[in-house]
């Protein structure tokens, strides 16, 4: 199966249309990301996620731990999945799964710093609690989580995927660019890639860059 591409931090209807036209799988919409550069309020989230699309689906990206806020966004938006981007606990994953069932995919981000995964001991329990996909992302500190543009060392990714034998449930994030993605795809049957900086030029979604990323996945 061809790896899926998710472009993170979508903020405008024009970006939604562009990604849909370019056959991107997922648009990441941020809500409940304090001081997040792409954060949306609930009205913006609803407006974007209810745009008619041919293929593009929406994933809510949040740092929130508050089940009420999460439930409000899931119920009001039109989203296919939720990406828990912070240091969330397995119990919250379980609560979300028991509340929304299989209709809502759960993408749990785990954080890698200096070739060590902070949540390494919890990954099996995230999966047991209902996480559908694990996203490997790099982080610097608690003020710089997500969209850092910093890559995870390829050797770490290789070791992680070989040790766990679960590449089809893993997305890679953190400083991804076309050639490193292509290299990974040739070695591992990944679920997909979570991309921010590599899809942008001067901070804006760039059609040529997105087109290149999508075309690389098809080769």
């Amino acid at each position, binding site marked *: 199966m061809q790896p899926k591409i998710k472009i993170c931090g979508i903020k405008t209807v024009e970006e939604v249309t562009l990604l849909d036209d370019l056959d991107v799988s997922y648009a990441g919409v941020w809500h409940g990301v304090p001081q997040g550069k792409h954060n949306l309020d609930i009205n913006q989230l609803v407006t974007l996620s209810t745009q008619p699309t041919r293929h593009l689906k929406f994933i809510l990206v949040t740092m929130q*731990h508050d089940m009420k806020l999460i439930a409000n966004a899931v119920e009001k938006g039109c989203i296919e999945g939720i990406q828990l981007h*912070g*240091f*969330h*606990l*397995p*119990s*919250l*994953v*379980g609560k979300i799964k028991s509340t929304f069932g299989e209709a809502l995919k759960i993408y749990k981000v785990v954080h890698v710093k200096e070739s060590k995964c*902070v*949540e390494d*001991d*919890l990954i099996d*329990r*995230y999966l*047991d*609690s209902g996480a559908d996909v694990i996203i490997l992302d790099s982080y610097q500190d*608690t003020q710089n989580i997500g969209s850092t543009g910093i890559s995870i060392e390829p050797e770490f990714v290789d070791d992680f995927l070989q040790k766990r034998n679960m590449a089809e449930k893993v997305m890679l994030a953190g400083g991804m660019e076309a050639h490193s993605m292509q290299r990974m795809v040739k070695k591992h049957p990944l679920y997909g890639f979570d991309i921010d900086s590599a899809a942008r030029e001067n901070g804006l979604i760039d059609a040529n860059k997105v087109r290149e990323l999508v075309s690389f996945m098809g080769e």
Partner: protein
Amino acid sequence: MSKLPDLKQYITEEFIPDGNNDHLADDLDLIASGVIDSLGVLKLVAFIENTYDITLEPEEIDPENLKSIDAVSKLVESRGISLA
């Protein structure tokens, strides 16, 4: 006197920069009071599992069980480990 001296020492060394744990009562809500953040909770889980040689069930890894020294004490003792 805390029933979890190792835990109190760990929290002091890991999360209290000046090392002053005078206010660290056993029933203090560590999360609400800002002593530990969400990353700190994950570190606390690892400490508990490594120190007491237990593996917590996913549903046990919940803020209610990790929010205070008392709560952690109950969680560990529920596994048949005496902390007295």
